[in-house]
């Protein structure tokens, strides 16, 4: 096997079985989401409960406010459930 090959690749051009040839960060796992969290920053008390409970580590904290990385948020709603001040609302994704 030699250097970089273009996508899509045939099986002979992949590394040993089940090892990825690209970084797993390139696998966007948010694309099957049905609901998306929307944070009301005026209500948020920055307790970071949402950050703690998100199973996808999709809540981002920049030191000032929380936001959602929608590339990886799967829309489970755990953050909305856990938020003590109900600052997170789950709204439906547009279905075209």
């Amino acid at each position, binding site marked *: *096997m*030699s*250097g*970089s090959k273009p996508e*899509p*690749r*045939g*099986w002979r051009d*992949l*590394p*040993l*079985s*089940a*090892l*990825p*040839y*690209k*970084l*797993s960060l390139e*696998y966007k*796992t948010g694309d099957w989401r049905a609901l998306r969290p929307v944070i009301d920053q005026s209500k948020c008390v920055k307790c970071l409960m949402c950050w703690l409970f998100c199973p996808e580590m999709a809540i981002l904290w920049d030191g000032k406010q929380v936001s959602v990385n929608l590339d990886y948020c799967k829309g489970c709603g755990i953050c909305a459930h856990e938020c003590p001040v109900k600052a997170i609302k789950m709204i439906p994704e547009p279905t075209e």
Partner: protein
Amino acid sequence: MIFFSKKSKPKIPLEKQKLMTVNGDEAVAYAVKQCYVDVVAAYPITPQTIIVEKYSEFVADGEVHTEFIPVESEHSAMSACVGAAAAGARAFTATAANGLALMWEILYIAASLRLPIVLAVVNRALSAPINIHCDHSDAMGMRDSGWIQIFAENVQEAYDTTIQAFKIAEKALLPVAVNLDGFFLSHTLENIYMLPDDAVYEFLGGPRKVAKTYVDYLGKEVEAKLDPANPLSFGPLDLYDYYFEHKMHQVEAMKEAKKIVKEVHDEYAELSGRSYGDGILVPYEVEDADVIVTVLGSTGGTVRWVVKKLRQKGYKVGTVRIRLFRPFPFEELREILKGAKVVGVMDRAISFGSFGPSFLEVNTALYDLKEKPLLVNYVYGLGGRDVPPDLVEKMFMELLEDAKKGVVENKLRFLGVRE
């Protein structure tokens, strides 16, 4: 059957090998001890327990450098082996029956990640009802998981095959299951020859060497293992875009594996003087046989003994023991069976609603022939039910009768069950 080489003297002549009286489980433990294994993770389950007991003695006495992980279940045992093997270790575990069933999920992961783990399966019936005796339904449950599966006939072969298994696994980059019949082999004492430690060390080429693979984002070829200097993820997401391609790796690796099993077997034969057919099939009196019976595991010896007796009476019968079950040796088996009038397939397991698992394979092997032998499936010995020679003889007599008639009415028969 063991063939002691007559042609050339083995590299380690018998007088240099140690004659030991051990049971099958101990034989496996001694083999693993000689294989320079880094990690053994296991949970005790009858009839495998002696392997783990014996091996933990070696660990406690400081006779091996192995890290022994006494896990709380077989699911964890296989998981620990996966982790260890992914970190580059040579890993071993052993199980039976329901323990193997509990490993099921991780068996697939071990094979898909191409981790050369060795597993001793001490064949035992699956519950319910609870039964601790010999049966191949456990091994057949892991049939499609991507593991190489080898069946030993006796204690000597269980020892020899365990050593071969590490070399096969590391060459093929696939995990290997060494099957030995519960109680018939695991708890039965036999005199066996053991190689000197350094001969095994040399045979395996020392400790495990990890295979290399090219990784794009690192821009170089690295060892396929968990290594902070060259970080890799094992077992991440791989959806409809690449999963199928990755499965092709396993398909291809299995094709290669048959050759590797043969090569390693031959190399071991030169070293020890012991060989088992060509390493994948062990035929006996098949050349001109009208009736040939296929069999797996320890029953092979009984069947061969009956064949010998029937031959003396002038019956044209033969047998072939299937040593390698996965990958299945279709072409090789077809070559052996094609001249027979009737083939009887013995299965110590059944796929409910279908036939015995090896019957399906033998059927597939023969289907393309223009003139096919008639095929009969004999399910026998479930839950450790005894298989005495007169029962095997009764089977041969039925098959000879089928050969005379030229038709088979009842394709699925049960040997030794009370009506």
